[in-house]
């Protein structure tokens, strides 16, 4: 346990510089987005009002106002979120491969630590999870600041509606998925996410253990896990399977999720303690 915590801490420290850069990029991009979008909206509004000789209310009647959804749908806003997601997915691979590649084979050191090797597996998974939650927390933290800035840049009358954080999160497709409105949904989404991290890790360990053959095994394992997890959906589409109640489907997904997670951890444990190569 103690060495697990040390390893998690170690993994976090290893990525913290890039991670902080991601946060800074998000912060800058979103704030610049707020400023650029709102000031260009106000400029355009004044221009149009001047050219067409419109009053404020005339303009608003004709063109409408602005609200935070106009900000949160811009690339300034969505871009860094997408970047963070891609970066974390990419790092889910790199968190393993960086220990093997290059002339410094840190994998030797890690695998020779006097601790159960599954701690490595868990520490890497925990690090990914913490990075993800950190990003969510950061977004939730800066959103009200961005909203305040936005409302201060837009003249009161041009503001369609005032929105608070939860409304902003739900009004935006990507944000609504990333930070779901209900805590139970949050647990479900990130539970599924975590399951796929484990599946991915085990696939990577297949590759690290059996190399060329392992690539095939890893990909097959990943596909099998995905298909198995989605099998209730196939069952629902199948005529011969009796119709299931929503709670049964939910239970099925839950059982499958636990099963796949458990299997991934068990196989991962076997691979990392018995089969892995350096």
């Amino acid at each position, binding site marked *: 346990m103690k060495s697990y915590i040390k390893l998690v801490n170690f993994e976090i*420290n290893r990525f913290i510089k890039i991670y902080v850069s991601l946060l800074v990029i998000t912060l800058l991009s979103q704030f610049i987005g707020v400023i650029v979008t709102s000031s260009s909206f106000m400029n355009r509004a004044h221009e149009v009002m001047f050219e067409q000789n419109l009053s404020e209310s005339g303009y608003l009647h004709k063109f409408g106002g602005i609200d935070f959804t106009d900000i949160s749908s811009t690339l300034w806003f969505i871009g860094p979120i997408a970047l963070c997601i891609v970066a974390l997915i990419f790092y889910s691979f790199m968190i393993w491969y960086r220990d093997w590649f290059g002339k410094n084979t840190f994998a030797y050191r890690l695998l020779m630590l006097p601790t159960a090797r599954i701690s490595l597996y868990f520490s890497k998974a925990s690090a990914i999870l913490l990075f993800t939650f950190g990003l969510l927390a950061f977004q939730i933290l800066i959103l009200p600041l961005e909203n305040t800035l936005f409302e201060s840049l837009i003249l009161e009358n041009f503001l369609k509606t005032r929105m608070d954080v939860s409304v902003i999160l739900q*009004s935006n497709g990507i944000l609504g998925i990333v930070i779901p409105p209900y805590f139970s949904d949050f647990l479900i989404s990130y539970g599924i996410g975590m399951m796929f991290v484990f599946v991915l890790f085990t696939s990577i360990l297949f590759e690290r253990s059996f190399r060329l053959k392992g690539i095939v095994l890893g990909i097959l394992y990943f596909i099998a896990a995905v298909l198995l997890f989605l099998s209730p959906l196939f069952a629902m589409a199948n005529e011969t399977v009796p119709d299931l109640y929503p709670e049964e489907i939910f239970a099925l997904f839950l059982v499958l999720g636990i099963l796949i997670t458990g299997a991934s951890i068990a196989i991962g444990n076997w691979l990392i303690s018995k089969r892995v190569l350096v």
Partner: protein
Amino acid sequence: MKQYISSILLVCLSIIIIGAYYGIMIVNANDFPEYSIKTLEGHESEMKDVSLSGFVEKEGMNTSVKITSNETLYLSNQSSLQRMTVYNDPRIEKLKKEHRSFMRGKNNIYSFYQDADFIAYAETVYKPSSLDHSYKYVFNIGLLDLASDKDISFELGVPGEIFNSISVLDVQLIQSKLKVVTKNYMYTNTGMDEAEVHVYTFDLGNQKLLNDEVIITPQQVKMGYDVINSMEQNPSQPQKSIIFIKRPEIVNQSEGSANTTNKAAIFEYVYDKNHLKTIELPESLTDRIVTSQNYVNGDKLYVINHDAKGLHLTTFTITNQTITNDQTFPIKSVGTETFPIVIKNDRVYVLATNDFEENNSSNLPPQLFIGEMKTGKTMYKGEVIPKKVDQKFNTKSLVLYSLEIN
């Protein structure tokens, strides 16, 4: 300790911020107003059995609400799982609880028949045939014997031509035969809906289709035949007949010639006689029936219209083909909207909802009206208002759409 600073910050901030966010969300979800029905007229005891359902909107989120004389019940603090079923028909949910295995995949309340001994189910499903993989409608029929808890189910192809879609109007079990009334839409070249009403009779013991009868032809349907909804709370209960209304055609005056179909009539299909009976309606109902809300309860046909004067409710007794009651209740409404209405125990209950459409500027709270059928007297009038004034919730936040009398 210094080396742990990033991790500690990351863990703590994540937990605190995400925790706080969902904490606020949960508090907000509980932060819905309590509503009460404020009596404007009449005596409160009249409305103690009334429960009103709808939803409250807050910041783009809807949550279901049930308002009774003494409490406001929200369904928002539900888990994801509960939210999956909360919008389902409560009558179906009740059946599902009682007959879990039989009720699998059965969702349409109009497809059910239920009496003391049996639950029957008939629906039409569009699926590929096992022979040539062309899609066709089939009947999916099930019967549950409540005494033995045994059930049978079978599938039978819908005979005849290929239909565009089929909807089940009613299912009845009459003398061990299953009667399924459907409205079958046909493929047309004109793009117009063309439909006919069938009654299919099944022999459940031998799992065979005994009879397929067209009771209302496409020509008749085109002229305007509708099923009259039962006032009963549960469409699955035994009925001896199904009633259709024929709305009179709007006569093209320039044609000149008098049209005999230009007369309101109802058709009663009596199940055990396999017979469609035409019952003419009095002249006084003819022009009203075009826009009316119509309900059947037993042998009573209620014809309901709204206008500036109020709610005009006429009771037509089918067995002796006479108007037995005719009252106007003072419920004013804009346009031709239809309100949820329940007639029970010589009372008419009306939920005068506020407006669904955004651009309607009327900002009145929903009203509950209870009138006495016999005398037309207003027994109760009240409005649904929040107990406390809350800026976040104006009257538009509350949308009620159904009314139940327990």
